[in-house]
């Protein structure tokens, strides 16, 4: 049953725009929600499956956005000693790939360096990393335009040799692009989690000394998870840049990390569907709340909802609901075959 749930959800999301009809406002909200949900899914890989609370996740998202934007816009900067780096614009699709690679590399760096520190220290290191990156984006004006923002970022163009090129300019096209990337990320995460690698991550989260004692390499496992997680966040950032066509250092705001954390925790960390459910709820909540309250008041509502969820369903909506519905009924215990060790 539950294996068809993701497919049903995907089918629903495919037909959703057709059901909505031409509604640019709602479509825009769905696209941004989708992009943030990809971010939340990537965060879930770290927070939910390895148990490492990264509160600097927005750094990877923002790095992806800037790398992608700069690749497709080109730049000309002096890097000191009279050396200049000049880069002519490349296609946006290349920017997307580079964004993924660049964010993944940063994930590797942060993973290698900071998994030696865990718990509260890890949280603070990741926040600091995001803040440093934001300050660089703000102050390296020659490269990033600083607070003036990078503008006129081109839309992504997809081409197949012999079949022609499409520039994804409309909201509908972008919606399906985001959906496709999201589905891909979901597939990768599902595969990872169901593999021995996923078990290694769970083992480390549940009982690290025991996991080490059965031969699991903690640094390697956590670093691989961080690389994949960061690369996905970078991909989401790239989508964001090419969809909005403008980015400024505010993409690095701590508040966006908090939104993603709320999506993951509310939906159910360590579950495949959790971040998607949480992402849809908290991504679309502003659409529902906007007519009735100011943005500040919305944030107050988010905060209260997060506290209530942590109190009522500490494991999140998806596990909470499946617990309520009794879906997790224990399978009947197989008949015991007496153990050779006990027999005799």
């Amino acid at each position, binding site marked *: 049953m539950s294996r068809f749930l993701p497919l049903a959800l995907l089918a629903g999301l495919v037909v959703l725009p057709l059901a909505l009809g031409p509604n640019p406002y709602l479509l825009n909200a769905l696209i941004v929600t989708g992009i943030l949900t990809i971010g939340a899914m990537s965060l879930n890989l770290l927070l939910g499956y390895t148990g490492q609370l990264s509160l600097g996740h927005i750094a990877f998202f923002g790095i992806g956005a800037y790398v992608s934007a700069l690749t497709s816009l080109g730049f000309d900067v002096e890097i000191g000693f009279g050396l200049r780096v000049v880069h002519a614009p490349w296609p946006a699709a290349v920017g997307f790939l580079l964004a993924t690679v660049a964010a993944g590399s940063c994930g590797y760096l942060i993973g290698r360096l900071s998994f*030696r520190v865990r718990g*509260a220290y890890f949280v*603070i290191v990741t926040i600091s990393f995001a*803040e*440093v990156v934001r300050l660089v984006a703000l102050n390296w004006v020659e490269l990033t335009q600083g607070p003036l923002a990078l503008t006129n970022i081109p839309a992504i163009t997809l081409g197949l040799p012999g079949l022609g090129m499409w520039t994804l300019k409309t909201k509908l096209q972008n919606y399906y692009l985001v959906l496709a990337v999201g589905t891909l990320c979901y597939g990768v995460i599902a595969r990872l989690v169901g593999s021995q690698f996923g078990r290694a991550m769970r083992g480390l989260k549940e009982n690290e000394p025991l996991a080490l004692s059965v031969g699991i390499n903690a640094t390697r496992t956590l670093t691989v998870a961080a690389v994949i997680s960061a690369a996905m966040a970078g991909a989401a950032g790239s989508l964001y840049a090419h969809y909005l066509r403008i980015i400024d250092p505010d993409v690095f705001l701590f508040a966006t990390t908090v939104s993603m954390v709320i999506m993951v925790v509310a939906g159910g960390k360590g579950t495949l569907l959790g971040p998607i459910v949480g992402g849809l709820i908290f991504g679309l909540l502003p659409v529902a709340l906007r007519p009735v309250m100011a943005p500040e008041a919305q944030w*107050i509502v988010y905060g209260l909802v997060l506290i209530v969820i*942590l109190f009522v369903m*500490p494991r999140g909506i998806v596990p909470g609901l499946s617990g309520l519905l009794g879906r997790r009924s224990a399978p009947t215990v197989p008949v015991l075959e007496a153990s050779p060790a006990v027999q005799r």
Partner: protein
Amino acid sequence: MDELIQHLANALILGGTYALLGIGLTLIFGIMNVVNFTHGALYTVGAYVMYLAVAGLGLNFFLALPVAILGGLLLGAAIELLLLRPFRGSDIDTTMLVMIAAGIILQSGTLWTFGGVAKAIPSPFPEAPLQIGPVSLSWLRLFVLGAALALIALSYALINRTKLGLAMRAAFQDADTAALMGVDVRRIYTATFALGSSLAAAAGALLGPVYVVFPQMGGLAELKAFAIVILGGLGNVTGAAIGGFILALAEEFGAGYVSSGYRDAMGFLIIITVLLCKPTGLFARAERIG
């Protein structure tokens, strides 16, 4: 040379309030094992209470300061009773998320109430700075340093010379044993959080008149407080006091000699460097395996 002395003086003045921020945060972590993500919001609230008391109610500047500290104390106690006590026994990540949520609520509440426009708190000190040789110091900043040092001394006395402080230190060593010895640990937690919060509010109330007051001012202050606490070692009060001055020095010299745009990045670079070079040396408690 003159420039160097001026930078040193500035760092000393800034360091006092940073130390206050750090001590509050490190107390709460050390005793309660809670990473307090409302610390920045409490700093903001302290500044706004000061603003309301001075600019709104026309209260005397020197009377408004204790009012702001009291405000932080009460708000901190309320947060502990309403939000932390029900979650006692949850893991550190859960309480961290609760505190993040509470921080968002406080910050958004401030923005909603006061709007986003920065406010200035009038100060009773003369505009003209005090000139000592080549160094010029504003009277307000000197007062801020004096008040911060007085509050640090007061906190030390409270922790080391009172019965409450003794119970706090016992809870810091081992909450279970302290409870067995008749310490009401729940009350200690409330007192600790209230005390830590009042120090954050005091820092806000002191720096508010120096700069301007705006709803997002706490965000950066909070991150700086983290940097200070990591420098000194989580849970180490003296370490936090020293860490405050080190961060102020790094910022002042970073801004003066490197680039003013990266002034605020100094703290984070320090965190990253310290943790990468000597992470084990900073751990407050070693974990035992098996």
